[in-house]
Protein backbone atom coordinates (compact mmCIF):
# COMPACT_ATOMS: atom_id res chain seq x y z
CA UNK A 1 0.00 0.00 0.00
CA UNK A 2 1.60 3.23 -1.18
CA UNK A 3 0.77 6.62 0.33
CA UNK A 4 1.71 10.20 -0.43
CA UNK A 5 2.18 12.46 2.57
CA UNK A 6 2.13 16.19 1.80
CA UNK A 7 2.92 18.25 4.89
CA UNK A 8 5.19 21.29 5.05
CA UNK A 9 6.05 21.12 8.78
CA UNK A 10 9.30 19.15 8.71
CA UNK A 11 9.00 17.54 12.16
CA UNK A 12 5.42 16.49 11.69
CA UNK A 13 6.16 15.17 8.20
CA UNK A 14 9.01 13.06 9.51
CA UNK A 15 7.07 11.76 12.52
CA UNK A 16 3.96 10.79 10.53
CA UNK A 17 6.11 9.23 7.81
CA UNK A 18 7.98 7.11 10.36
CA UNK A 19 4.79 5.87 11.97
CA UNK A 20 3.15 5.04 8.65
CA UNK A 21 6.26 3.14 7.55
CA UNK A 22 6.26 1.34 10.85
CA UNK A 23 2.69 0.26 10.10
CA UNK A 24 3.90 -1.25 6.82
CA UNK A 25 2.94 1.49 4.34
CA UNK A 26 5.26 2.62 1.61
CA UNK A 27 5.40 6.42 1.95
CA UNK A 28 6.52 9.22 -0.38
CA UNK A 29 6.78 12.67 1.18
CA UNK A 30 6.24 16.13 -0.25
CA UNK A 31 6.86 19.44 1.53
CA UNK A 32 4.84 21.80 -0.60
CA UNK A 33 1.78 21.72 -2.87
CA UNK A 34 3.62 21.82 -6.15
CA UNK A 35 5.86 18.94 -5.21
CA UNK A 36 2.80 16.97 -4.08
CA UNK A 37 1.00 17.54 -7.38
CA UNK A 38 4.07 16.59 -9.38
CA UNK A 39 4.38 13.31 -7.48
CA UNK A 40 0.68 12.60 -7.89
CA UNK A 41 0.98 13.05 -11.64
CA UNK A 42 4.04 10.85 -11.82
CA UNK A 43 3.05 7.79 -9.83
CA UNK A 44 0.00 6.00 -8.55
CA UNK A 45 -0.91 6.04 -4.88
CA UNK A 46 -3.46 4.16 -2.80
CA UNK A 47 -4.12 7.22 -0.67
CA UNK A 48 -3.00 10.82 -0.08
CA UNK A 49 -2.66 12.68 3.20
CA UNK A 50 -2.85 16.33 2.27
CA UNK A 51 -2.20 19.32 4.51
CA UNK A 52 -4.33 22.34 3.62
CA UNK A 53 -1.86 25.09 4.52
CA UNK A 54 1.20 24.57 2.36
CA UNK A 55 3.59 26.89 0.52
CA UNK A 56 3.56 27.33 -3.31
CA UNK A 57 0.21 25.69 -3.73
CA UNK A 58 -2.30 24.99 -0.95
CA UNK A 59 -3.91 21.62 -0.35
CA UNK A 60 -7.30 22.68 -1.71
CA UNK A 61 -5.75 23.71 -5.00
CA UNK A 62 -3.79 20.43 -5.24
CA UNK A 63 -6.99 18.53 -4.51
CA UNK A 64 -9.06 20.40 -7.13
CA UNK A 65 -6.33 19.95 -9.72
CA UNK A 66 -5.99 16.20 -9.13
CA UNK A 67 -9.76 15.70 -9.31
CA UNK A 68 -9.89 17.83 -12.47
CA UNK A 69 -7.35 15.43 -13.96
CA UNK A 70 -9.53 12.47 -12.92
CA UNK A 71 -7.11 11.17 -10.31
CA UNK A 72 -9.51 9.33 -8.04
CA UNK A 73 -7.04 8.41 -5.27
CA UNK A 74 -8.71 8.84 -1.86
CA UNK A 75 -7.63 11.96 0.03
CA UNK A 76 -7.46 12.63 3.76
CA UNK A 77 -7.13 16.37 4.47
CA UNK A 78 -5.30 17.76 7.44
CA UNK A 79 -6.82 21.04 8.59
CA UNK A 80 -5.07 23.29 11.05
CA UNK A 81 -7.94 25.63 11.59
CA UNK A 82 -11.04 24.25 13.17
CA UNK A 83 -12.89 26.24 10.56
CA UNK A 84 -16.03 24.55 9.39
CA UNK A 85 -15.81 26.40 6.06
CA UNK A 86 -12.38 24.89 5.44
CA UNK A 87 -13.61 21.38 5.93
CA UNK A 88 -16.67 21.96 3.79
CA UNK A 89 -14.53 23.43 1.00
CA UNK A 90 -12.20 20.43 1.20
CA UNK A 91 -14.94 17.85 1.11
CA UNK A 92 -16.63 19.70 -1.75
CA UNK A 93 -13.36 19.80 -3.68
CA UNK A 94 -13.24 16.01 -3.55
CA UNK A 95 -11.63 15.01 -0.25
CA UNK A 96 -12.83 11.74 1.26
CA UNK A 97 -12.20 12.68 4.88
CA UNK A 98 -10.54 15.31 7.07
CA UNK A 99 -8.66 15.35 10.33
CA UNK A 100 -8.23 18.57 12.37
CA UNK A 101 -4.80 19.30 13.85
CA UNK A 102 -3.63 18.49 16.44
CA UNK A 103 -4.54 14.85 16.08
CA UNK A 104 -3.72 11.59 17.82
CA UNK A 105 -1.57 9.22 15.71
CA UNK A 106 -3.97 6.43 16.55
CA UNK A 107 -6.81 8.35 14.91
CA UNK A 108 -4.70 9.23 11.87
CA UNK A 109 -3.91 5.56 11.35
CA UNK A 110 -7.57 4.58 11.70
CA UNK A 111 -8.58 7.21 9.14
CA UNK A 112 -5.88 6.05 6.72
CA UNK A 113 -7.12 2.49 7.08
CA UNK A 114 -10.68 3.61 6.50
CA UNK A 115 -9.69 5.72 3.48
CA UNK A 116 -7.74 2.97 1.74
CA UNK A 117 -10.21 0.21 2.46
CA UNK A 118 -11.72 -0.67 -0.85
CA UNK A 119 -15.44 -0.91 -1.22
CA UNK A 120 -15.16 -4.40 -2.65
CA UNK A 121 -13.55 -5.64 0.56
CA UNK A 122 -17.08 -5.74 1.88
CA UNK A 123 -18.33 -7.62 -1.14
CA UNK A 124 -18.49 -11.37 -0.73
CA UNK A 125 -16.46 -13.37 -3.28
CA UNK A 126 -19.54 -15.38 -4.14
CA UNK A 127 -23.29 -15.08 -3.74
CA UNK A 128 -25.53 -18.11 -3.45
CA UNK A 129 -29.22 -18.74 -3.92
CA UNK A 130 -30.86 -22.18 -4.28
CA UNK A 131 -28.77 -24.02 -6.90
CA UNK A 132 -26.80 -21.07 -8.26
CA UNK A 133 -23.48 -19.44 -7.37
CA UNK A 134 -22.49 -16.02 -8.70
CA UNK A 135 -18.75 -15.35 -8.51
CA UNK A 136 -18.05 -11.65 -8.12
CA UNK A 137 -14.40 -11.90 -9.19
CA UNK A 138 -15.00 -13.03 -12.76
CA UNK A 139 -18.79 -12.48 -13.09
CA UNK A 140 -19.34 -16.19 -13.67
CA UNK A 141 -22.77 -17.70 -13.04
CA UNK A 142 -22.71 -21.40 -12.20
CA UNK A 143 -25.21 -24.19 -11.59
CA UNK A 144 -24.61 -27.28 -13.77
CA UNK A 145 -22.72 -25.28 -16.39
CA UNK A 146 -21.04 -21.91 -16.25
CA UNK A 147 -21.66 -18.74 -18.25
CA UNK A 148 -19.94 -15.38 -17.98
CA UNK A 149 -22.24 -12.43 -17.49
CA UNK A 150 -21.74 -8.93 -18.82
CA UNK A 151 -21.41 -6.04 -16.34
CA UNK A 152 -25.05 -4.97 -16.24
CA UNK A 153 -26.37 -8.55 -16.07
CA UNK A 154 -23.96 -9.18 -13.23
CA UNK A 155 -25.00 -6.07 -11.32
CA UNK A 156 -28.67 -6.86 -11.82
CA UNK A 157 -28.31 -10.44 -10.58
CA UNK A 158 -26.10 -9.26 -7.71
CA UNK A 159 -28.87 -6.85 -6.69
CA UNK A 160 -31.42 -9.66 -6.66
CA UNK A 161 -29.08 -12.01 -4.78
CA UNK A 162 -28.40 -9.34 -2.16
CA UNK A 163 -32.17 -8.95 -1.68
CA UNK A 164 -33.33 -12.55 -2.06
CA UNK A 165 -36.66 -12.14 -0.29
CA UNK A 166 -37.63 -8.82 -1.80
CA UNK A 167 -39.54 -7.85 -4.84
CA UNK A 168 -37.73 -4.95 -6.55
CA UNK A 169 -39.63 -2.48 -8.70
CA UNK A 170 -38.48 -1.54 -12.19
CA UNK A 171 -37.83 2.01 -10.87
CA UNK A 172 -35.66 0.73 -8.02
CA UNK A 173 -33.66 -1.42 -10.44
CA UNK A 174 -33.18 1.48 -12.87
CA UNK A 175 -31.91 3.56 -10.00
CA UNK A 176 -29.61 0.96 -8.44
CA UNK A 177 -28.24 -0.88 -11.47
CA UNK A 178 -28.45 1.76 -14.21
CA UNK A 179 -28.01 4.72 -11.83
CA UNK A 180 -30.82 6.45 -13.70
CA UNK A 181 -28.82 6.48 -16.93
CA UNK A 182 -30.86 8.45 -19.49
CA UNK A 183 -30.72 5.69 -22.08
CA UNK A 184 -32.20 3.06 -19.76
CA UNK A 185 -35.96 2.50 -19.56
CA UNK A 186 -38.43 -0.07 -18.27
CA UNK A 187 -37.83 -2.16 -21.40
CA UNK A 188 -34.10 -2.22 -20.64
CA UNK A 189 -34.82 -3.84 -17.29
CA UNK A 190 -37.18 -6.27 -18.98
CA UNK A 191 -34.59 -7.24 -21.60
CA UNK A 192 -31.89 -7.80 -18.99
CA UNK A 193 -34.28 -9.90 -16.90
CA UNK A 194 -34.90 -11.94 -20.08
CA UNK A 195 -31.14 -12.31 -20.61
CA UNK A 196 -30.69 -13.51 -17.05
CA UNK A 197 -33.56 -15.98 -17.27
CA UNK A 198 -32.07 -17.35 -20.49
CA UNK A 199 -28.71 -17.70 -18.77
CA UNK A 200 -30.21 -19.31 -15.66
CA UNK A 201 -31.87 -21.82 -17.97
CA UNK A 202 -28.63 -22.27 -19.87
CA UNK A 203 -26.62 -23.18 -16.75
CA UNK A 204 -29.32 -25.68 -15.84
CA UNK A 205 -30.63 -23.82 -12.79
CA UNK A 206 -34.21 -23.97 -11.53
CA UNK A 207 -34.00 -20.36 -10.34
CA UNK A 208 -35.91 -17.74 -12.33
CA UNK A 209 -36.54 -14.03 -12.01
CA UNK A 210 -40.28 -13.60 -12.02
CA UNK A 211 -42.39 -10.54 -12.58
CA UNK A 212 -44.19 -8.59 -15.26
CA UNK A 213 -42.72 -6.19 -17.76
CA UNK A 214 -42.53 -2.71 -16.20
CA UNK A 215 -43.45 -3.96 -12.73
CA UNK A 216 -41.56 -5.54 -9.83
CA UNK A 217 -39.22 -8.53 -10.12
CA UNK A 218 -37.92 -11.06 -7.64
CA UNK A 219 -36.06 -14.35 -7.39
CA UNK A 220 -37.99 -17.60 -7.43
CA UNK A 221 -36.62 -21.05 -6.73
CA UNK A 222 -38.17 -23.55 -9.09
CA UNK A 223 -40.83 -21.07 -10.11
CA UNK A 224 -40.86 -22.64 -13.53
CA UNK A 225 -40.28 -26.19 -14.68
CA UNK A 226 -36.84 -26.55 -16.17
Amino acid at each position, binding site marked *: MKLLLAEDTQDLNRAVCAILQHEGYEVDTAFDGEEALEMLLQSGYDGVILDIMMPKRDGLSVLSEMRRRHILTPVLMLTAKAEIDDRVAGLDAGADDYLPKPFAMKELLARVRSMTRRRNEYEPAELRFADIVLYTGDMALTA*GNTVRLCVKEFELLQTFLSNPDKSLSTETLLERVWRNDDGAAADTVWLYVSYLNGKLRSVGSRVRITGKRGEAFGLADGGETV
Partner: protein
Amino acid sequence: MKDLTDQITRIRTELHYKTGIDPVEHCLYRIKSEESMREKCRREGLPETEESALQMIHDAIGVRIVCSFLSDVYTIRDRIIEIPGIAVVKEKDYIKHAKPNGYRSYHMILRTHEGYFAEIQLRTISMDTWAALEHHMKYKKTISGNIALISAELKRCADELTSTDVSMQAIRDMIFEDSEGEENV
Protein backbone atom coordinates in the same frame (compact mmCIF):
# COMPACT_ATOMS: atom_id res chain seq x y z
CA MET B 1 -26.71 -40.57 -47.08
CA LYS B 2 -28.48 -38.94 -50.01
CA ASP B 3 -31.82 -39.66 -48.36
CA LEU B 4 -30.73 -38.14 -45.08
CA THR B 5 -29.29 -34.99 -46.63
CA ASP B 6 -32.43 -34.59 -48.75
CA GLN B 7 -34.56 -34.86 -45.63
CA ILE B 8 -32.47 -32.26 -43.81
CA THR B 9 -32.68 -29.94 -46.81
CA ARG B 10 -36.45 -30.43 -46.83
CA ILE B 11 -36.74 -29.54 -43.12
CA ARG B 12 -34.59 -26.48 -43.69
CA THR B 13 -36.66 -25.33 -46.69
CA GLU B 14 -39.95 -25.88 -44.87
CA LEU B 15 -38.87 -23.89 -41.82
CA HIS B 16 -37.44 -21.16 -44.00
CA TYR B 17 -40.74 -20.94 -45.89
CA LYS B 18 -42.80 -20.97 -42.68
CA THR B 19 -40.85 -18.37 -40.68
CA GLY B 20 -39.11 -16.39 -43.42
CA ILE B 21 -35.76 -17.13 -41.78
CA ASP B 22 -33.41 -19.94 -42.72
CA PRO B 23 -32.71 -21.68 -39.39
CA VAL B 24 -29.50 -23.24 -40.74
CA GLU B 25 -26.41 -21.15 -41.30
CA HIS B 26 -24.57 -23.96 -43.03
CA CYS B 27 -24.51 -27.70 -43.21
CA LEU B 28 -21.56 -30.05 -43.79
CA TYR B 29 -21.63 -33.71 -44.73
CA ARG B 30 -18.76 -36.14 -44.75
CA ILE B 31 -18.26 -39.85 -45.17
CA LYS B 32 -15.30 -41.40 -43.43
CA SER B 33 -12.64 -42.40 -45.92
CA GLU B 34 -11.90 -46.07 -46.42
CA GLU B 35 -8.53 -45.67 -44.76
CA SER B 36 -9.92 -44.02 -41.65
CA MET B 37 -12.72 -46.63 -41.50
CA ARG B 38 -10.13 -49.41 -41.58
CA GLU B 39 -8.08 -47.62 -38.97
CA LYS B 40 -11.13 -47.26 -36.72
CA CYS B 41 -12.00 -50.97 -37.14
CA ARG B 42 -8.46 -51.89 -36.10
CA ARG B 43 -8.60 -49.53 -33.17
CA GLU B 44 -11.92 -50.95 -31.97
CA GLY B 45 -10.80 -54.52 -32.61
CA LEU B 46 -13.41 -55.09 -35.34
CA PRO B 47 -12.90 -57.05 -38.54
CA GLU B 48 -12.13 -54.76 -41.47
CA THR B 49 -15.27 -55.70 -43.37
CA GLU B 50 -18.10 -53.83 -44.99
CA GLU B 51 -20.42 -55.25 -42.35
CA SER B 52 -18.43 -53.80 -39.48
CA ALA B 53 -18.18 -50.54 -41.25
CA LEU B 54 -21.90 -50.22 -41.74
CA GLN B 55 -23.21 -51.78 -38.58
CA MET B 56 -20.71 -51.07 -35.87
CA ILE B 57 -19.23 -47.72 -36.66
CA HIS B 58 -21.61 -44.98 -35.72
CA ASP B 59 -19.89 -42.03 -37.28
CA ALA B 60 -19.23 -43.43 -40.76
CA ILE B 61 -21.54 -40.70 -41.95
CA GLY B 62 -21.22 -37.33 -40.29
CA VAL B 63 -23.52 -34.37 -40.62
CA ARG B 64 -22.88 -31.04 -38.97
CA ILE B 65 -25.73 -28.57 -38.92
CA VAL B 66 -24.74 -25.08 -37.84
CA CYS B 67 -27.62 -22.84 -36.79
CA SER B 68 -27.83 -19.11 -36.24
CA PHE B 69 -29.72 -19.28 -32.95
CA LEU B 70 -29.94 -21.63 -29.99
CA SER B 71 -33.65 -22.29 -30.44
CA ASP B 72 -32.99 -23.34 -34.07
CA VAL B 73 -30.79 -26.17 -32.78
CA TYR B 74 -33.70 -27.65 -30.86
CA THR B 75 -36.25 -26.95 -33.60
CA ILE B 76 -34.13 -28.88 -36.11
CA ARG B 77 -33.56 -31.67 -33.57
CA ASP B 78 -37.32 -32.01 -33.08
CA ARG B 79 -37.85 -32.25 -36.84
CA ILE B 80 -35.03 -34.77 -37.38
CA ILE B 81 -36.54 -37.31 -34.97
CA GLU B 82 -39.73 -37.16 -37.05
CA ILE B 83 -38.02 -38.16 -40.31
CA PRO B 84 -39.77 -41.34 -41.48
CA GLY B 85 -37.67 -44.50 -41.40
CA ILE B 86 -35.10 -42.97 -39.05
CA ALA B 87 -34.41 -44.40 -35.60
CA VAL B 88 -32.65 -42.37 -32.93
CA VAL B 89 -30.01 -44.60 -31.38
CA LYS B 90 -28.50 -42.09 -28.99
CA GLU B 91 -28.73 -38.42 -28.13
CA LYS B 92 -26.37 -36.33 -26.03
CA ASP B 93 -27.12 -32.74 -25.14
CA TYR B 94 -23.74 -31.13 -24.59
CA ILE B 95 -25.47 -27.75 -24.70
CA LYS B 96 -27.44 -28.42 -21.55
CA HIS B 97 -24.53 -30.36 -20.06
CA ALA B 98 -21.39 -28.76 -21.45
CA LYS B 99 -18.16 -30.76 -21.37
CA PRO B 100 -15.70 -29.57 -18.71
CA ASN B 101 -13.48 -27.98 -21.37
CA GLY B 102 -16.41 -25.82 -22.51
CA TYR B 103 -17.45 -27.88 -25.57
CA ARG B 104 -21.10 -27.44 -26.48
CA SER B 105 -23.11 -29.21 -29.22
CA TYR B 106 -26.16 -31.45 -29.58
CA HIS B 107 -25.14 -34.94 -30.72
CA MET B 108 -27.45 -37.56 -32.24
CA ILE B 109 -26.76 -41.00 -33.63
CA LEU B 110 -29.37 -42.12 -36.15
CA ARG B 111 -29.96 -45.42 -37.89
CA THR B 112 -31.53 -45.29 -41.31
CA HIS B 113 -33.92 -47.93 -42.57
CA GLU B 114 -31.07 -49.38 -44.67
CA GLY B 115 -29.30 -50.06 -41.38
CA TYR B 116 -26.38 -47.68 -41.54
CA PHE B 117 -25.54 -45.11 -38.91
CA ALA B 118 -25.08 -41.38 -39.07
CA GLU B 119 -23.81 -38.97 -36.47
CA ILE B 120 -25.46 -35.56 -36.43
CA GLN B 121 -23.89 -32.60 -34.65
CA LEU B 122 -26.11 -29.59 -34.14
CA ARG B 123 -24.64 -26.33 -32.85
CA THR B 124 -24.73 -22.56 -33.15
CA ILE B 125 -22.22 -20.53 -35.17
CA SER B 126 -20.35 -19.50 -32.04
CA MET B 127 -20.14 -23.09 -30.77
CA ASP B 128 -18.80 -24.06 -34.20
CA THR B 129 -16.12 -21.36 -34.17
CA TRP B 130 -15.13 -22.39 -30.67
CA ALA B 131 -14.94 -26.10 -31.60
CA ALA B 132 -12.77 -25.27 -34.62
CA LEU B 133 -10.26 -23.42 -32.46
CA GLU B 134 -10.29 -26.09 -29.78
CA HIS B 135 -9.69 -28.69 -32.50
CA HIS B 136 -6.59 -26.78 -33.63
CA MET B 137 -5.25 -26.82 -30.13
CA LYS B 138 -5.95 -30.52 -29.66
CA TYR B 139 -4.34 -31.65 -32.89
CA LYS B 140 -1.45 -29.27 -33.19
CA LYS B 141 1.67 -31.23 -32.35
CA THR B 142 3.63 -28.41 -30.82
CA ILE B 143 1.79 -25.62 -29.16
CA SER B 144 3.78 -22.51 -28.57
CA GLY B 145 2.51 -21.05 -25.35
CA ASN B 146 1.15 -22.14 -22.08
CA ILE B 147 -1.34 -25.01 -22.57
CA ALA B 148 -2.94 -24.53 -19.16
CA LEU B 149 -3.50 -20.85 -19.92
CA ILE B 150 -4.88 -21.57 -23.40
CA SER B 151 -7.27 -24.22 -22.05
CA ALA B 152 -8.50 -21.91 -19.28
CA GLU B 153 -9.00 -19.07 -21.76
CA LEU B 154 -10.85 -21.37 -24.19
CA LYS B 155 -13.16 -22.39 -21.35
CA ARG B 156 -13.74 -18.73 -20.48
CA CYS B 157 -14.51 -17.92 -24.12
CA ALA B 158 -16.96 -20.85 -24.32
CA ASP B 159 -18.81 -19.48 -21.30
CA GLU B 160 -18.83 -15.97 -22.77
CA LEU B 161 -20.01 -17.18 -26.18
CA THR B 162 -22.84 -19.09 -24.51
CA SER B 163 -23.80 -15.94 -22.72
CA THR B 164 -23.88 -14.06 -26.04
CA ASP B 165 -25.87 -16.85 -27.74
CA VAL B 166 -28.48 -16.60 -24.99
CA SER B 167 -28.58 -12.79 -25.23
CA MET B 168 -28.97 -12.92 -29.03
CA GLN B 169 -31.82 -15.37 -28.57
CA ALA B 170 -33.53 -13.03 -26.07
CA ILE B 171 -33.17 -10.11 -28.50
CA ARG B 172 -34.57 -12.19 -31.35
CA ASP B 173 -37.48 -13.27 -29.15
CA MET B 174 -38.13 -9.62 -28.32
CA ILE B 175 -38.07 -8.64 -32.02
CA PHE B 176 -40.44 -11.41 -33.01
CA GLU B 177 -42.67 -11.41 -29.97
CA ASP B 178 -46.38 -11.35 -30.74
CA SER B 179 -48.01 -7.98 -30.32
CA GLU B 180 -50.34 -9.45 -27.69
CA GLY B 181 -47.40 -11.64 -26.56
CA GLU B 182 -46.72 -13.33 -23.30
CA GLU B 183 -45.49 -10.74 -20.86
CA ASN B 184 -44.83 -13.10 -18.01
CA VAL B 185 -41.28 -14.27 -17.61
